């Protein structure tokens, strides 16, 4: 079995799977990161993705164009995120509670619309969906190893690009500085004339766009169908990945890749013939790995924080 896994790594087929699994999680996580920076843990990522998955495939099937599909998905997702922001900032609702409300709402409204417009409450498989294209790079795809870069969905590239852009926005632009300021200390930000409400809403809009792309990828990139609750926890995994990445863009990328790898390996093991490992255990692998990494990470962080403190107390005693 290990030889088989190793082979999959060698012939690079595992990477296609990893990138496919990682893209939606990564997009949602970067979106959630923007909300995190303004001090809100956005539980509603899942709902935003689900709504986008629905609207993107509906518009895609109507227009026969994947790009319009993504646009529609993003619009729906931004709407959901703005709704959440409205509850939190205007009416001071608790962000966890309203996030859950948003998820329940998204799950129900998609099923409701499915029922009203398509007479089905479980799934929707329209004809004429144009799938989000796969990018094949002409020269690279024939070179060993480098061919790794070819043959991935357009969205996979967007997902990795979003990490780089996010890092630039956070650390190289005034907007990024304002974002951090608002998140760290609203009073201080206000005192220097930053319109904190505007920054917060913009962060939620960005989050909506990213979740929208991720959701559209699920219904029109990996599959060409909508199934109720098809996001299946991707939004929550994104939240875990944010903490795993210590709320830093490249940390999120690393966390996402770890989760993606664990997931791909679980899928490969699961389909390997004649295995006696209980399937429940195999299915838990990605989550076990995530928890393990999170624990290791927390312990490391604590050590870093504790280090200097001990020294100071030592010098006082001495």
């Amino acid at each position, binding site marked *: 079995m290990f030889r088989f896994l190793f082979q999959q790594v060698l012939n690079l087929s595992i990477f296609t799977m990893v990138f496919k699994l990682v893209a939606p999680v990564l997009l949602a996580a970067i979106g959630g990161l923007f909300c995190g920076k303004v001090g809100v843990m956005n539980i509603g990522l899942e709902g935003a993705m689900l709504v986008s998955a629905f609207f993107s495939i509906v518009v895609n099937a109507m227009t026969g164009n994947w790009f319009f599909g993504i646009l529609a998905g993003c619009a729906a997702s931004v709407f959901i995120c703005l709704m959440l922001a409205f509850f939190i900032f205007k009416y001071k609702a608790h962000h966890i509670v309203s996030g859950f409300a948003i998820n329940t709402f998204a799950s129900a409204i998609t099923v409701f619309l499915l029922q009203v417009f398509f007479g089905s409450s*479980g*799934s929707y498989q329209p004809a004429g969906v144009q799938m989000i294209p796969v990018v094949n790079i002409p020269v690279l795809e024939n070179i060993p190893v480098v061919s790794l870069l070819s043959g991935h969905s357009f969205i996979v590239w967007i997902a990795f690009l979003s990490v780089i852009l996010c890092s630039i926005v956070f650390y190289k632009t005034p907007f990024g500085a304002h974002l951090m300021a608002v998140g760290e200390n609203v009073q201080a930000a206000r005192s220097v004339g930053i319109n904190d409400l505007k920054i917060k809403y913009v962060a939620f809009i960005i989050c909506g766009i990213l979740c929208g792309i991720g959701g559209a990828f699920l219904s029109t990139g990996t599959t060409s*169908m909508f199934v109720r609750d098809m996001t299946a926890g991707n939004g929550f995994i994104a939240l875990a990945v944010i903490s795993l990445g210590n709320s830093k863009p490249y940390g999120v990328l690393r966390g996402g890749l770890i989760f993606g790898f664990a997931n791909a390996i679980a*899928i490969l093991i699961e389909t390997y013939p004649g295995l006696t490992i209980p*399937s429940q255990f195999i299915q838990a692998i990605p989550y076990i790995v995530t928890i393990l990494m999170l624990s290791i990470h927390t312990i490391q962080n604590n050590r870093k924080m504790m280090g200097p403190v001990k020294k100071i107390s030592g010098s006082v005693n001495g």
Partner: protein
Amino acid sequence: MRKNSKIFLTAAAVMMIVTSGTVFAESDSGENLSVVLYANGSFGDNAYFDGNKEGVLRAEEELGIKAKLIEGGSEQADYKPAIEALAASGEYDIIVTLTGKTSDIVLELADKYPEQDFFVMDTTMNEVRPNIFNSMYNQCEGSFLAGAFAALVTSSTELENANPEKVIGFVGIMDSPTINDFYDGYEQGAHYVDSEVEVLKSYIGDSTNAPKAKELAMAMYNSQNADIIFNVGASAGLGTLEAGNEAGKYTIGVDINQNGIYPGSVLTSMLKNSGSGIYNAIALYQKGELEMGTSQLWGIKEECIGLAEDELYDEYVPDSIKERMEEITENLVNGEIEVRSELY
């Protein structure tokens, strides 16, 4: 005169009460049986729950019953209060519930509401009450046919997308007794045809994660050289079917006839014809021939289980496979082949 009118009015009132009484009694007797189907899931899965819904609606049309459909969703805690509310209302002659997730609830309610009749379909109950009818579909038998079919496809030289490796796959919802019963039959069927066939098995983990189902199926096709996969995955299973179509390989649908979803790729479907099951039960009940208080196993003979042999099946499946399947089906019906199941 005034006295007369009073008598007349009283007489009229009495008449009205009597007639309304008879009208009421009429609607309560067999003519207009009212049946409610409580689905512990949601319709629109293009599979199991839709099949049940179809059966009840067919009964409404052909048997003239009054039907009501209720979607219970996936929250298990909701089932009991919802079913109890239906029983307490006294509106329905029969309450139909599905699968083992509701059998314990019904058992409890049957004692509390002895006047209410219940049908518990698609599960085996160890004990029943006089007001419960329980039936189980022999999915193991049907999966046997699917397994035999898959083994014939993977060894076929006539089907252009079948590869030389004798590997077939199974993608199920989760590691549960019912789903494993499908698998047991599938494996037995495959090995009945050819003992060298390797059967891959994997589980999605839930019934909605279509992208994951697709990924699992893709891994079977691309990394393990499977050329046909049996989809037992409810809504998520649509992902399995899509993988088969995209990889240019074959799949077998489940529960209802899924052949038309990807013609040429979904070669056949294992019909767990729960719709006919419910329909038959209601029809027998109407005629007063249903043995309440029993537990029955319905399979190929009762036409509740089988393979979907429609015009798409005729078009895409080679004659040699069709002939072998007919032979195997016959042997199953006349009892020459025995399918072992751990559930019943």
